[in-house]
């Protein structure tokens, strides 16, 4: 049954056969493909491949679930993810530490996502993000929790590749999964947070840069109800229902009820924002400013205004 060596030799051709038949065959094959070309080139900016959930794209942190164990930083082969200590607050024994990522070094091997004991890191199924400078590729804790803004999805046509005997690969328009959050089960205070038109399944496509960590929280439940039943979940960003049934509403109130003084221990991301917001580079400045003044209103109005 295992391997058997097989002696073969190169197919021989007579002198006339080689010159005439060889040339003719090659020419006819060339003409055949000239008349009926088999092309599956992806016209990148106009079309983009909509990959399914398993693709190892950018990595996003779910702040609440991270227990700061540091095994992701220890396993990272290129030291792209390292732990950073948050400033010590009174009434706390040890300083808490969270991972931050540097995409200049990340090779997308996915070890960190695989090793995280509480599934606090997840892959977003796209990788082609454009940054203006190397500096922006180093993400702060705050940016690390937001899904990168997938600009290609806004004007490109999503396309999927399907295997085919005759053509090899065939481009198929990826069907638009209408992830319209069904308002019925939606907790009443949470209107559909993404604007109605061109409902993109991924929250990242929300035009306005989603405000800080609270938004992804609120964002996720919006999608989480609708596709729960579909087996191959096409939406990457969902909150696992079982582990934190009540997380979203409390998170939302927390941001609204304590806008001024630093939030409770599990919200340290909130507290450092004023410090960082001042020195942030200009481009992010607008964003932080934007989130800061709207942060105090109710999340619902924030998303509406954010949806402009």
């Amino acid at each position, binding site marked *: 049954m295992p391997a058997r060596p097989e002696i073969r030799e190169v197919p021989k051709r007579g002198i006339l056969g080689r010159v005439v038949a060889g040339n003719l065959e*090659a020419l006819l094959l*060339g003409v055949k493909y*000239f008349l009926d070309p088999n*092309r599956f*080139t992806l*016209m990148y900016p106009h079309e983009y491949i909509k990959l399914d959930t398993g693709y190892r794209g950018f990595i996003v942190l779910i702040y609440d679930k991270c227990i700061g164990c540091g095994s992701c930083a220890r396993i990272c082969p290129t030291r792209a993810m390292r732990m950073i200590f948050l400033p010590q607050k009174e009434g706390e024994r040890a300083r808490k530490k969270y991972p931050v990522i540097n995409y200049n070094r990340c090779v997308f091997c996915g070890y960190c996502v695989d090793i995280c004991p509480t599934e606090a890191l997840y892959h977003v199924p796209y990788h082609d993000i454009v940054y203006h400078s190397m500096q922006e590729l180093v993400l702060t804790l705050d940016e690390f929790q937001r899904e990168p803004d997938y600009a290609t999805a806004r004007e490109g046509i999503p396309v999927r590749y399907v295997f085919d005997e005759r053509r090899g690969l065939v481009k198929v328009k990826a069907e638009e999964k209408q992830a319209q959050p069904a308002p019925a089960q939606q907790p009443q205070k949470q209107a559909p947070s993404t604007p109605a038109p061109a409902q993109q399944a991924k929250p990242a496509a929300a035009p306005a840069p989603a405000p800080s960590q609270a938004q992804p929280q609120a964002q996720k439940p919006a999608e989480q109800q609708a596709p729960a039943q579909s087996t191959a979940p096409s939406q990457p960003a969902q909150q696992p229902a079982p582990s934190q049934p009540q997380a979203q509403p409390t998170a939302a109130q927390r941001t609204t009820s304590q806008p001024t003084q630093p939030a409770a221990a599990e919200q340290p991301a909130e507290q450092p924002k004023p410090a960082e917001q001042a020195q942030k580079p200009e481009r992010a400045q607008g964003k932080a400013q934007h989130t800061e003044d709207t942060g105090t209103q109710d999340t619902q109005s924030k998303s509406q205004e954010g949806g402009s």
Partner: protein
Amino acid sequence: MVEMVTAYVIWHDFLRYLIFYPPVYQFIIIPGLIAALVVAIFIIWFERKAAARVQMRYGPYEISPRTGGATQLIADLIRYSFQEIIVPRTVDAAIYFAAPVAAVILSLMPLNAIPLTSNPAFWPIPMDYSLLVAVALTTLSPIFVIVMAWASNNKFSLIGGVRESFIVTAYELVAVLSMLSVAASMSTFNLVDIVEAQSGGLWYGLLNPPAFLAAFIATLMTTSGFPFEIPDAESEIVAGPYTEYSGLMYGLDMGAAYIKRWVFSVLMALVFLGGWAPYVPGTGFVLGYLVPSLIVSAKALVIMAVMSFLRAVYGRYRIDQALGVAWEILIPLAMAAFGVGLAEAYFHVYAHLGVMAVAG
């Protein structure tokens, strides 16, 4: 009565004696520089598109999606003309600049000997020995490719220059023999008579296919068409004689290669595909001169399109194999073609048609 020298007269003489004076007109406008430039642009675009279709891709597209990337070539032309010309220090400057210009001019020379109409008013030179003169003039330009190689003083271009000189020995004899086999069968060197002999629908290419094939392959070898792209083989000797050239000079070199192929195609269209065969040129400029030259250009374009399609099918020969193909296969083929030509003369194939008075 002294004629009034009016603006109209000056304008009329200027047109007649300078712009539409056949040798100047042929050299510059229809089959000459401007036509060659337009054809070169179209052929390069066709070559990239045809090769793309065969090779599972789209070819030039992004620059003008609706027209399938046609303006890509104009963009390339502009790029070439505005690119910085870098002249290495170790180059023999005088000849370095002169050689490409000479190569372009000399590859255009044969056009003077090519008639584009049977109307004698529009013949650039007396047509009695036009075939002989045209074929002779086609042999001049390779010399300047070798001079280019020597002037750029670079190892790869030296090797490229030596290969060019080898290839010249291979295809010269084949080109001359296959072209002259028509003179044997029609017992005349006058291209106009040759075309008129074929106007009866009996093209010489169909009557003597070995000659047509030999001439076709010889043309591929002169202008390093695809199976014989040996002097400037980029995977062995970077760009051969053209390695040290950049910007407009490189554009000029590439232009010389395409012009040479265009001139050979026009010559082959006249000799083998019956020139302006179905159309009998009338009098006057448009009917007698412009239309037949467009027909000849169209046929030459078809030949060039087939030549450029071979890029998608063939690899590259080694220099000694190319010489082997030329000496062992093409020269006997050309001899056979010449023999067929003689046989046709013996059986008075064309003379039998009563068109040609038997010479002497």
